[in-house]
């Protein structure tokens, strides 16, 4: 498998494919540059084990260190609360995608439209469909995925990474945000 093959083999998007984030610093630069980023945390984040933790633990750290508002999809809000993070909204993935596509929407915190939406921990195919909706109908919103698989429908995606490389990348992104 190449580093930029879609994880699900048939999820071939079309002419416009995600740029690959090759280094954690790139992800950090994208987050820092965003005026109003948003983190969308999916149900699988509470199941996926990354090293000695769950994916959700890294996402909580990312949100806290970066001061990034959070949308919890499905029932993952409960898992966030257990980690002392109150999500700004609990919404279905397709619901938040539709809101993001509205340039007049004031955002989950009422502070204005989001210009960067980060996704992690949703089923791969659902992430793909949601990202596709945003790619086509939310020109003002850039998308970035933090799963360890390549998502061609995003604006930026991590490549297909081993668990070890993924841990390193996530830790680096979080540490860099602290600086």
């Amino acid at each position: 498998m190449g580093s930029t093959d879609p994880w699900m083999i048939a999820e071939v998007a079309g002419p416009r494919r995600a740029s690959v984030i090759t280094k954690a610093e790139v992800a950090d630069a994208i987050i820092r540059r965003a005026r109003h980023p948003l983190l969308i945390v999916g149900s699988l984040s509470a199941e996926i084990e990354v090293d000695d933790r769950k994916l959700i633990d890294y996402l909580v750290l990312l949100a806290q260190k970066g001061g990034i508002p959070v949308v919890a999809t499905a029932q993952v809000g409960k898992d966030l609360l257990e980690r002392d993070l109150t999500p700004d909204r609990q919404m279905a993935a397709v619901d938040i995608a539709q809101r993001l596509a509205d340039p007049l929407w004031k955002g989950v915190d009422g502070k204005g439209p989001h210009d960067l939406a980060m996704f992690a921990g949703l089923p791969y195919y659902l992430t793909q469909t949601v990202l596709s909706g945003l790619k086509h109908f939310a020109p003002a919103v850039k998308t970035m995925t933090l799963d360890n698989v390549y998502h061609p429908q995003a604006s930026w995606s991590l490549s297909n990474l081993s668990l070890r490389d993924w841990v390193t990348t996530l830790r680096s992104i979080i540490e860099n945000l602290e600086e």
Partner: protein
Amino acid sequence: MHFAIKELNTSLGKIRDLDISIGRIEEEGWTDPVGPTPFPSLASLRNWDLTLLQRYRPFYMPFCDLCCLCTYGKCDLTGDKRGACGIDMPAQQSRMVLLASSIGAATHLSHARELVDRILERNGHQKPIDVGGHNVEVEAPIIRLVCGIRPRTIGDLEEVLEYLETEVTQLLAATHTGMEANNLDFESKVLHAGMIDQVAMEVADIAQVSAFGFPRADPEAPLVQLGMGTVDQKKPVILVVGHNVLPSIDIIDYLEHNGLSSDVEVTGICCTATDMTRYSPSAKIIGPISWQLRYLRSGIPDVVVMDEQCIRADTLLEAQKMRTPVIATSPKNCAGLPDRSGDGAEEIVADLVAGKASGALILDSVKAAQVAVQTVLEVAPERSHFKVLPSTDMITEKAGECTQCKLCRRSCPNDLAIPDAMKAAAKGKFSLLNEMYDECVGCGRCEHACPQGIPIHSVICAAAQKQIKEETFTVRAGRGAIQDVEIRQVGGPIVLGEIPGVVAFVGCANYPKGGREVAEMCMEFAHRRYIVVTSGCAAMSAAMYRDDEGHTPYEMYPGSFEAGGLLNVGSCVSNAHIAGAAVKIASIFARRNLRANYEEIADYVYNRVGAVGVAWGAMSQKAAAIASGFWRLGIPVVVGPHGSKYRRMLLGRADKKEDWSVFDARSGERVYVGPVPEHLFVAAETKEEAAVMVAKLCMRPNDTSKGRAIKLNHYIDLHKRYMGTLPSDIPLLVRTVADIPLTMKSDVLNILRESGWSEHSIPDPTLLSSQIREKKGVR
């Protein structure tokens, strides 16, 4: 005019069974006025559609960036680009949705046509429609609603079919290059396709219920057996797969007429199975659509009979591996087999038994039945040694060939961790494989991806052999329609909101985490005293569960249309009875005129009947059409995460107050009613998210305070249980203090105070200005 002559001797010769109908008999004694839209055409209900679509805006999620439907293409439609024909991405996506819905509608319609033609051929035009005797006077609510006629005989259905065939042709034509241009107009046609589909399903089911003696609106339809473990493998076994029950009926009749009923097991997969158990409760359902591959490979079926719809395209290839003869019976699914319809049955049997032919196309279901039975009796004793899956040694050996390339996992629709399970199996540990069995949708893509040629699906099934043997469940045979008296009893509590909702679990078996979730959701809502209705593959999945005492859900809950009931209406085409029940509430309870009065009735259902469809494993184009029919009636549909691949959601915006006003029919004033129901079509990521959504989507503007309090109680309780918090949208759903559930009063009041909430009135809600009784100049 209609007349029939049994036998007539004339100077010209002898005439037998002459049956002539001219024109349509005008209904005598039906005094209901004909409404505004009898036999509506493509644009007749466009205003209603656009009213819905203004509130529930399409959100498109293209599967790919391209259009490749004509030779101008491929055209890149990314962003705001247009294709060579001028089409843009929203229109292209809605066009694809229309194509899917039209395919679905055409499929049900073609099915209905075959059933009606066969019944007309055997029983004549005057065969009465009887779906429930005196218990069902509104025998065809959807036909009455859409067409404005009241069919009394099977012959009366011909006019309906001709109308439907015209409409499907028009719908398909609208998808041609350079035809429809606007996405909302495509969407209106999608809703039209859904309505046409609902009529077609009703035609099909009332015809087969009337002609074949299926349960007639029977809440106590028999419990029938379901699961691979129920099959007596000592007997010859026939598998019938598909949706059209005609070949199954002929097989069952042939067995009975020849005294063989107890000698042969007749088993089925998918809706054919459901319908044959409505005909004969001794037939057995193997499981939903996803059981095809595992059952074929088990070697248990000795003969396979295919009819139509949702049959794997590789059935013949799979059957050949097991040396199982295949009989195709539908011109829509010839499977590349030679047409043996004109050959003698004995000749075909001889060829199949000798292995000279792997299968035969027999477009005569009586002959096909004879061939199937005679063949199975001869081949079964010879095939006993094929009734095996890989042994445990073989599993270990095959798993040991795995190179951990992960192509299997990357091909799996559910991203199952097959490589990990293979690694464990190579060491003799099968628990991961066994666990995977429940979540496997049986597509077989993993095998096609495997460069080592490991028969992964077979390996999974082999590891789950104990579990397969324990697949012994019961499901209530499809009962058909809902009785008028049942509607009278629950109509009021539903419309007032005191029965918190009607939840229909329908559709296919493309589940994200196995069918058990369907059973769990059914029990959750039945336990909460919702009315739970099932159909199709979902009805089977609902049965595949046992509690600690060994009861299946259909044994735990009554089969009547009442609070806490769990009803299986039947196969895919029986979905019409679910829509029919909603429509009958308007007709029987509220005494609204059904006849050709679609817009008013849909407005009534939308504003008052707290019904929600859940298609947790929706896969097919038929499922798309079924959902579309519910949308036009104003009934929301929740799909599982795979349902997002239908490319488009219909989502409301709870945050836009201006979207949620209705007319108060008493005064004509515009009144805010809150976001109820919030969405018309929405994909849920998990079972838990779906459960919370369903509870919320059951709310309607017409709910009384008592009813809204009951509904809020369930919504808040489920939200707290699964999401860990009180829902943030409570202020949007509480209209007056009386709406607040008593046991939650202080918590809810705190939220309301913090949000700046204020009371608002409960109107007599309608979206239609035509329904305003006293107009005060506010339109």
